[in-house]
C-alpha cells in the first residue's frame, strides 16, 4: 500500500519533504524486520532450489564463464532482500535519514540470513533422502550448491555469497538517482543482451553481421566476460550522457498540440511499421516464429483488453472465443472436417467466422451480463471450459472430431495471391501484423468513441453510468462481442498457422495467460498491452509456444502466477498504465493523501499511523 504514488500527487508531496537527517550507525538495525525479511528470503531460496530452477537453468550461460541463469535465480533473492530491507517508508512530516553504512550492513545481514536457507538445505541434502515426495531432491542440486566441493563449503559459501549480494543490494541505496540509473542501465544491457541472444544471433546472420555476435557471444552461448564489461561500460556511458534525453523527448512530444502532434504521432507509427515490415526480411525462421507468436497474443490481448481494460468485465473464459474462431475456421476451410466441409477460401471463411463468434459472444454474454462482477468471472470460466468439453466430447465428435481434432487445415490464401501456412513463419507474421494493425486501429478508435467512453463509465461506476443514460446492458454486451471478434481473428490465424486444431490447445490456462499479459502490460492501454505481450510471450513464451528463454518452459506458468500476484500487490495499473485507470486504482490513496495534507497544514501534528491497512474495509 505504501507503493509509489502516481506522479500527480507525488510531486506535490515532495515539496513539503523535510531534508534528510544524518545517516544512522551501522548496527542500529531494526533486527526483527531484518530477520523476518531474511527468513522470507531463505524460504524463497529453498523453494527456488527445490523447484529445480538452478539445475535446469545452469545450461543457459549469461556471462561466460562466471554466471549462469541457474545461479542468477539463486542470487536474485538475497539481492532483493538486501535492497528491500533498507527501504524507508516516507510519510508526510517524518524525517528520512540519509543512506549510509547502515543500509549496507543491514543488507548484508539480511542477505546472509536468506543465503543461510541454502546452507541449511545443503546440510539437509547431504544427510536426508527426501526424494520420495520432492522430485528435485538430487545429488545434482547438492553438487551445484557446493560448487563441486564438500558440504561444509556449501554452508560457508552461501552465507558469504548471501551477505555479499545482500550488501550489494543495500549499497544500491547509497547511489544517487543518476548513478543508480546508470548502474541499472548497465545491468539491463548485459541481461538484455544475454536474454536476446538467440534473436540477435539470428538477426546478425541475416544481416551479415556475424563478426558482432562472434565478439559478443561465446561459442556455446553466453556473453564473453570481456564483451560483457565492454557492453556495460558502453551502456553506462550512454546512460550518463543520455540522461534525461528520453524524458525530455517524451515531455516534448506530450507538449505538442494539434497538427504537429498528429504529424509526430504519424511519423512514429510509420517508423514502427517500417521496422516491423523490414525486420522479418533479415530474420531467420526462429525470429519470425517468435514474432508470429507474439503477434497472435497481441491480438488476443487486445481483444481481452476491450473486455477487461475498457469495460471492466473480468472474462476468464476468453479462450472460448479463440477456440470457436479456430474451430469454425478449421471446419469451413479444411477438406478433412468430419461433417461440414465447404472448403471456403480463408478470407471468405473469416467473414463467417466473425459472424459465428459474434453470435457466440452474444450467447455467452447475454446470460452473464447482469451478474455481479465476480460471479461473472466464474461463470465465463465455466463457459470457457464447457466449450472445450463440447469440442472434446464424443457427442459432437461427428462435427469437430472429438479428441482427434481437425487436421490438414490448408493455410490462409489471400485473393489467391499468397498462401500462408505454418511452414513459412514470415508470411504468417505479415498476416498477423496486418490483423494486429486492424485490431490496434479498431481499439484505438473505439477507446475515443462514444461507446468507449460509455465502457469506461460503466467500468468506473455502473450505477452512475446508468443514471447518465447509458444502456449498461447493451454497452457491456457490445464489449463482449467486440472482444469475441478480435479473439476470433487470432483463432482463425492460429488454425491456419498450425494446420490442425485440438481441444487441448484451448485450456483455461490460455485465458489466464492472456489475462496476465493484459494486466502486466497495463489494463486499458494499447501500448501497454502490446509491450506486455512482447515481453512475456517473447521472453517466457506462451502456454505452448517457447519464448527466448526456452529453458524456462517448465517454470513459466509458475512465474506467470507469481507475476500476477506481484503486479496486483505492487502495481495494479501495469507496466505502462493508462492514466485514467491508474487514477481510479489509487483513488483511495489520493484521497488519503489530500486529507493528510490538509491535516498537516491545519494543526501540524502527525501521528504517521494512518496507513490504509489501519482502517478496516470501508
Amino acid at each position: 500500500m505504501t507503493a509509489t504514488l502516481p506522479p500527480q500527487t507525488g510531486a506535490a508531496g515532495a515539496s513539503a519533504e523535510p531534508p534528510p537527517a544524518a545517516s544512522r550507525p551501522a548496527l542500529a538495525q531494526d533486527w526483527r524486520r531484518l530477520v523476518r525479511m531474511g527468513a522470507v528470503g531463505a524460504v524463497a531460496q529453498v523453494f527456488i532450489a527445490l523447484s529445480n530452477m538452478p539445475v535446469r537453468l545452469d545450461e543457459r550461460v549469461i556471462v561466460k564463464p562466471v554466471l549462469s541463469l541457474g545461479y542468477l535465480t539463486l542470487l536474485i533473492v538475497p539481492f532483493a532482500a538486501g535492497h528491500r530491507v533498507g527501504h524507508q517508508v516516507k510519510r508526510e512530516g517524518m524525517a528520512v535519514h540519509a543512506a549510509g553504512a547502515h543500509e549496507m550492513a543491514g543488507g548484508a545481514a539480511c542477505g546472509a540470513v536468506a543465503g543461510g536457507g541454502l546452507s541449511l538445505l545443503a546440510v539437509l541434502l547431504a544427510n536426508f533422502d527426501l526424494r520420495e515426495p520432492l522430485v528435485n531432491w538430487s545429488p545434482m542440486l547438492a553438487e551445484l550448491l557446493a560448487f563441486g566441493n564438500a558440504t561444509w563449503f556449501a554452508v560457508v559459501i552461501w552465507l558469504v555469497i548471501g551477505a555479499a549480494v545482500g550488501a550489494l543490494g543495500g549499497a544500491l541505496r547509497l547511489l544517487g538517482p543518476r548513478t543508480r540509473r546508470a548502474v541499472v542501465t548497465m545491468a539491463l544491457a548485459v541481461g538484455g543482451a544475454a536474454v536476446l541472444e538467440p534473436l540477435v544471433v539470428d538477426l546478425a546472420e541475416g544481416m551479415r553481421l556475424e563478426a558482432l555476435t562472434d565478439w559478443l557471444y561465446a561459442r556455446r552461448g553466453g556473453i564473453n566476460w570481456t564483451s560483457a564489461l565492454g557492453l556495460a561500460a558502453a551502456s553506462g556511458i550512454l546512460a550518463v550522457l543520455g540522461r534525461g534525453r528520453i524524458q525530455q523527448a517524451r515531455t516534448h512530444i506530450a507538449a505538442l498540440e494539434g497538427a504537429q502532434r498528429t504529424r509526430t504521432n504519424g511519423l512514429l507509427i510509420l517508423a514502427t511499421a517500417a521496422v516491423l515490415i523490414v525486420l522479418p526480411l533479415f530474420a531467420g525462421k526462429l525470429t519470425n516464429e517468435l514474432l508470429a507468436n507474439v503477434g497472435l497474443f497481441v491480438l488476443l490481448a487486445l481483444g481481452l483488453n476491450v473486455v477487461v481494460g475498457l469495460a471492466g468485465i473480468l472474462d476468464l473464459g476468453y479462450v472460448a472465443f479463440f477456440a470457436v474462431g479456430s474451430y469454425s475456421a478449421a471446419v469451413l476451410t479444411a477438406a478433412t472436417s468430419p461433417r461440414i466441409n465447404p472448403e471456403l477460401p480463408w478470407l471468405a471463411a473469416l467473414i463467417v467466422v466473425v459472424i459465428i463468434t459474434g453470435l457466440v459472444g452474444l450467447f455467452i454474454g447475454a446470460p452473464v451480463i447482469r451478474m455481479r462482477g465476480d460471479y461473472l468471472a466464474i461463470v465465463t470460466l465455466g463457459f470457457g471450459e464447457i466449450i472445450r468439453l463440447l469440442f472434446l466430447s464424443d457427442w459432437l465428435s461427428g462435427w469437430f472430431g472429438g479428441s482427434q481434432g481437425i487436421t490438414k487445415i490448408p493455410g490462409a490464401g489471400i485473393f489467391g495471391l499468397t498462401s500462408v501456412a505454418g511452414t513459412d513463419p514470415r508470411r504468417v507474421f505479415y498476416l498477423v501484423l496486418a490483423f494486429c494493425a486492424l485490431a490496434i486501429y479498431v481499439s484505438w478508435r473505439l477507446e475515443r468513441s462514444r461507446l468507449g467512453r460509455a465502457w469506461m463509465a460503466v467500468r468506473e461506476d455502473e450505477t452512475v453510468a446508468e443514471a447518465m443514460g447509458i444502456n449498461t446492458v447493451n454497452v457491456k454486451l457490445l464489449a463482449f462481442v467486440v472482444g469475441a471478434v478480435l479473439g476470433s481473428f487470432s483463432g482463425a490465424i492460429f488454425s491456419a498457422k498450425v494446420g490442425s486444431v485440438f481441444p487441448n490447445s484451448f485450456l483455461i490456462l490460455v485465458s489466464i495467460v492472456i489475462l496476465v499479459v493484459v494486466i502486466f502490460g497495463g489494463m486499458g492501454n494499447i501500448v501497454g498491452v502490446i509491450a506486455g505481450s512482447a515481453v512475456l510471450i517473447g521472453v517466457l513464451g506462451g502456454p505452448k509456444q517457447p519464448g527466448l528463454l526456452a529453458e524456462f518452459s517448465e517454470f513459466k506458468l509458475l512465474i506467470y502466477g507469481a507475476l500476477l500476484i506481484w503486479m496486483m500487490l505492487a502495481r495494479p495499473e501495469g507496466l505502462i498504465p493508462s492514466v485514467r485507470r491508474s487514477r481510479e486504482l489509487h483513488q483511495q490513496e489520493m484521497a488519503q493523501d489530500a486529507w493528510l495534507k490538509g491535516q498537516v497544514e491545519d494543526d501540524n501534528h502527525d501521528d504517521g499511523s494512518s496507513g490504509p491497512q489501519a482502517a478496516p474495509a470501508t
Partner: protein
Amino acid sequence: MIGRGRARSGAPRTGVDWFLTFMRVAILTLVAVGILAFIWQEIDTDNPFARWANPDATGLTGAQFRGLIISGVAQGCMYGLIALGYSMVYGVLGFINFAHGEVFMVGAMTGMITSNKLADAGLWESNFIGSLIFIVIVSMIVCTLVAVIMERVAYRPLRGSPRLIPLITSIGVSFFIQNASIVLLGPAAKAYPDVPDWVKDKHTFIQIEGSRILVVVVAAVSMGVLWYLVEHTKGGKAMRAVAEDAEIAALMGINVNRTIVKVFAVGGAMAGLAGILWGILFRSVIHTTGFLPGIKAFSAAVVGGIGHLGGAMAGGLSIGVAESVGPLLILEPLGVSGVSQLRDAVAFAVLIGVLLLRPAGIFGERLPAEDRT
C-alpha cells in the same frame, strides 16, 4: 441482485430480458422433458416417447440408480466441505477466494505424502483408523497454514481495493500453487497406498462401499463441529459480526484482522479434510485435482446461498448428485452420446442455471453490508 430485479420490473423489457426468459424456459423444459422421458422409460421400456430421441436408451436398474445417488452424495459431502471455505470467506470479505480449490489440492497432496510414509513404516496397514486420523490432522494443519499465509501475503494488503483486484490476485495464487506443486512434486499423478478391504468393497449388508460411508460420516461430524464453533462460541460470534458489518464489529472491540485470519484458517482446515476424503474416494492425486472440485464447490456455495453454512452443505449435496445422476437422467434420454464425458459440463451448467433462475441460491445470501446494496 433481487432488489435490482424488482426495481427493474417496471422498466420496458429489453432484448436481453427476452433472451434470458427464453433461456430460463428452455432450461426448465429441457430438464422436465429429460426427467419425464427417463421416468417413462423406467415404467415402460418400449414406449415411443423414451425412444424418440435415443433408440438405444436402456434406462437404469434400481441398483445402478442407487449407486449413482450414493456416489453423488459422497462427492457432494466433499464439495460441501470445500464450499464452506468459499462461503465463509465470501461472507466476510465479499470476494471469491479462487485459490481455495488449490488449498484442497494441497490437502490431498499432504495426505498422499503422509500416508505413503506411514505405509512405508507399516503403520497404514496395521492401524488404519489411527493412521487416517493422523493424516487428517497433518493435512488440516498444513492447509490451515497455507490458507493463513495466503491471506497474509496476498489478500490482506489488498483489503479495500476495487473488488476485482483481490479476485485477480486469487487467480494468480491458484495458478502459483498449482505450478509450485508441479515443480516441487512432479507433474505425474500420485497414488495413495492401498486401503483395507472393508473400505474398498461394498458392505455385504447395505451394499455401499465403506469409503463412501466413511466420507459421509466424517463430513457430517465435521459439519456439526463447525456449526457448533460458528454458532455457539465467542470466536464464531465474532465471525458472524464481522460478516455482518466489519466496521461496527471493530467498534465493538472485535479484532477484525484476527477474525478474518480465523475464517481463512477454518476454511483451510475444512479443505484439508476434504482433500483426505478425496484421497480415500479416488486414491490418486495430481496438481489439477483442485481446479474442478474448487469450481464445483463454489457452485455449491452459490446454489446453497453464499455466506450460509448449511446452504453450502446442501448445495454441495445437490451439485454432487446432479453431476452424478444428471447426465444419465436428462441427457441420455435426449439422445446425447458419451454422457459421462459431460459430467463436468453438467456441473458448470448447474451453476449457470442456478444463477439464471435464482441467483441468491436456495437459502438466500448472507453478505457483508456493503455488498447488499
